[in-house]
């Protein structure tokens, strides 16, 4: 009733509901500078997906797979493999098995870091995240039917929802689709009982649970965390819940642009993607990037709370998927674009793809106020 009355007010009708709002960073997501203060584990161009192989940390960087021996002081990362396409996703089963998803859609896996085999799925894939389940089972997030993982900006601006989740039997190489019609699934982790998969549906800013044996027909998809203030990426298991990497913030202008179809069309037609008004892994490096009014430097300083297209955010969720703590790098920081995270003893590692760093934080920072 009051809604109807509001619509009568000064012909604002439709517009009254048009006002853009984004959820605030509050509660467990209250901003801090933990990421800015975090210890640096490795400096590498655009580090992306993190995985553990014994006492070695594996991470991807462009087409190269690096390994880093953890614990030893001042060790530098060594190149272990190089591919003909960018590495889009990476996972290890903790027992020497690993899998790699490439930007060109291929998925490769092997026992050690040699003897690579490829899976050739029936449908074209855009692997964005991988996770091992029971022995010999690999789960794959495919971001989009039409765009490669590296073309994620276009997929967002096109407002696609063509992503899918797959389950592969590694011995036969046969895959089954578990769910489709997802808006860029970008992170996946099996639940503790292995019965379901927690999937980050990035363009819809939410986490969904998908049955490990469901199919697109049976559906069975449950939203467990909604209205995130950013775009979720990879998910990693934590002893008492999950780690969630948020790779970019939501913003009023971004959401506004996403509903302006004419502007989006002309932007895609005439402007290079790095200068689009969309979320980014890092920002402020070129004056050709779009700027927002609140992000104008005053007296040589940028406000920490300035509107920004890039942000650093790592969230801890409890076993009921509720956020309990977070680490931030705000608009005035540079450790942005956290795409991947990984528990390592009493530390948690985070890849800042926008800040060209792999970071390490104490887990205790996330617990208790």
């Amino acid at each position, binding site marked *: 009733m009051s809604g109807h009355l509001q619509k009568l007010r000064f012909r604002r009708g439709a517009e009254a509901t048009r006002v853009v709002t984004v959820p605030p960073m509050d509660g467990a997501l209250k901003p801090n500078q933990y990421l800015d203060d975090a210890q640096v584990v490795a400096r590498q161009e655009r580090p992306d997906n993190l995985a553990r192989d014994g006492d070695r940390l594996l991470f991807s960087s462009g087409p190269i797979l690096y390994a880093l021996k953890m614990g030893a002081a001042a060790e530098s990362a060594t190149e272990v493999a190089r591919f003909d396409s960018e590495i889009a996703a990476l996972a290890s089963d903790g027992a020497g098995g690993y899998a790699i998803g490439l930007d060109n859609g291929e998925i490769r896996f092997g026992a050690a870091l040699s003897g690579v085999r490829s899976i050739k799925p029936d449908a074209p894939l855009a692997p964005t995240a991988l996770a091992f389940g029971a022995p010999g089972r690999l789960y794959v997030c495919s971001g989009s039917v039409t765009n490669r993982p590296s073309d994620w900006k276009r997929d967002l601006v096109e407002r696609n929802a063509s992503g899918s989740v797959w389950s592969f039997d590694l011995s036969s190489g046969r895959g089954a689709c578990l769910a489709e019609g997802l808006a860029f699934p970008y992170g996946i982790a099996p639940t503790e009982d292995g019965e379901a998969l927690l999937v980050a549906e990035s363009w819809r800013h939410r986490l969904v649970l998908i049955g490990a044996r469901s199919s697109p027909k049976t559906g069975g998809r449950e939203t467990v965390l909604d209205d995130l203030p950013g775009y979720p990426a990879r998910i990693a298991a934590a002893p008492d819940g999950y780690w969630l990497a948020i790779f970019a913030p939501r913003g009023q202008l971004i959401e506004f642009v996403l509903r302006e179809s004419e502007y989006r069309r002309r932007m895609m037609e005439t402007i*290079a993607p790095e200068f689009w008004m969309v979320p980014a892994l890092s920002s402020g490096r070129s004056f*050709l990037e779009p700027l927002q*009014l609140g992000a104008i*430097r005053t007296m040589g300083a940028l406000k920490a709370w300035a*509107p920004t297209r890039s942000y650093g955010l790592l969230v801890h969720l409890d076993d009921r998927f509720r956020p309990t703590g977070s680490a931030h790098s705000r608009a005035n920081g540079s450790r942005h674009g956290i795409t991947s995270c990984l528990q390592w003893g009493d530390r948690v590692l985070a890849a800042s793809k926008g800040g060209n760093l792999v970071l390490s934080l104490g887990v205790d920072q996330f617990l208790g106020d």
Partner: protein
Amino acid sequence: MTSAGKTTTSDEISLGEQFTAWWHRWAPTKILGEILTKRWIDNLVPMVGLVVVIAVFGSLISEFFTPSAIANSTRQLGEFSFVVLAMMIVMLAGGIDLSVGSNFALANIAALGAFNWLGWPLWVAIPAVVALSAGVGLVNGVLIGYLRLRAFITTLVTMIVVRAVVESVTLNFGPQISAGDVDSPAWTFLSEGQIAGIPFSFALLLLFAVAIHALLTRSRPGWRLTAVGGSRRAAHNAGLPVRRIVASTYVVSGALVGIGGVLYAARLGNGGNTVGVGLEALALTAALLGGNSLGGGRGSVVKSVVGAVIVLTISNGLVRLSVPQGLPAIVMGAMLLLSVAIDIKWLKNRHKLLADVYVSPGYNYLPPPPSCEPDSGTPYALNDRLRDVEVIGKGEIESPEDVILDRDDHLYCGTRHGDIVRFFGPDHKRSEVFAHIGGQPLGLAFDRAGNLLVCDGGMGLYMVTPEREVRVVTDETNRSRWSMTDDSRLRLADDLDIAADGCIYFSEATTRYEMHEWAIDGHESRPNGRIIRYDPRSGSTRTVIPGLMFPNGICMTHDGQSFLYAETYACRVSRYWFDGPKAGAIEKVVVNLPGFPDNINRASDGNFWLALVGMRSPAHDLALRMPGFRKRMSRDIAADEWMAPNINTGCVVKFDLTGRIVESLWDLGGENHPMITSMREHRGYLYLGGISNNRIGKYRIPGADPDWTGQDSYWRSRK
């Protein structure tokens, strides 16, 4: 930084876009917003209501417009309007007076009694009656103003008490009061007389209306009264005698009701006890319908009279249409409710409507800009020549938009606190506040006599003499002929330069926004600015070039007949001839800059320095071509989130009069001197100012004339 690659591909303007451009240039959206800023917009709805009401009843009732009907109506209107004015004055100060009806009846019988029964002469009777009614008002005033009782309850009680008095008097002395047979031409004149064909009571109303209007809008007591109604606490804090003002409104109200009562008595001679029953509701309805606010602070004589005409027309019209008994009262009640609702809704939503409508983005097409890539080979190619700029006064000053040096090498700049700060030459280590003006000092220039002229955002054109005396030079210009709003006051004087004959040419960046709203003007990207000339010989200020897109820097060329000016949001520099054979001509000199031009100043080699305050970005350039997109942006998201020109990075370029860019100076990292709004060459160095900086930069220009100063360039030798 990667290449802008694709930005240069699509540069055709489609038919649809041409229509967009045309529509946003000529559509009345801007005017609509400006109309809403007018105070008289409040009267628009009542005025329309008035016209509708008269049209409806005029067509329903055949003899509505006959002279006798009109004469009768205007007599009634005279009496009634006095009561509505009484109600309005009390409401204006934030109160309400329900006792007007009873007081009116009291004045009526008092006038009849004094004249018919006691036989007082008119010149005694009328002032006595008015004083009696004012006395009732005084009781209200003391109780409400000084004893702080609730206006509603207090005047309700007065209404009942006075009505009781009237009834007891008419009960006991009715015949004596009514039965008047005194033959007085003056008394008859009150009811039937005419002045220049206008019924006396209506003429008297006009006289009072003009007087009260002047009192309310042009005199101190009127302003104070409005201030009390607008915000009682603020008025109290400002030192106004709130209690006395409130009390006095009831006294004035009573007196006006008294006059209305006398006129009524003279017209009808009716000593009955139903006179004035329900009049307070009618008066309240009329006052509210006219657009006077129930909450106080908003109201006028015109509104009241308009409301009175509407109410009287409807109530008389309904009676003449012989509608069933009781219906007129129901109609009046409904109208009272309606007007209260409109009053509240309008006041609450007016500013929202204005905010929705006022910002009116225009179409601003900028061709793809030249590349600034380090390896692009253009004169704009990025470099780090400003990396080793020496920093002056870091942290001591804020917002030095412009900088200038005098003959003794002292360095001057404005700050956002309204100061002119002077750094002592030659090393500029120590500083002092040279003068305080207020506002935000922007452009600076020295005249022949060594006075410092300052364009001050928010204030106008000011002068600081060498003796530190601050003087207004000018703060208004001629009003534009077809402008909806009064644009004569200077809002954002930005930069200036002085011609050889002493005339000062200065830019006003926008006439639609204030200094702190410059970004909204950029969002609008409309030609809202102008260039103005101040002639010291005649003391006159005239607009010379209207309709410019955020005109900013101004610099005299060396020919003494023309100057260069930069239009920030049009990304171009033009030249205007104010004298000589080409007087009045405008030529574009530099077009399609890759950034937003700010101040222009002379270089020692005969060329000109130009500051680019920010750089263009493809996403923003595209938005500038889509006014509807920007309009929705400004309506749907917070201003902090709007897409903005990138003024976090800037540079200095040097150009010649043919428009060729000679060189550019960049600070690639942007750490030392991020944004630049002005630069001034002096003895081989370039001094850099920036409006969102807290420092001044000093750059040694390789190969520049070490003796060259702006003073010598403009005024030759020391005077």
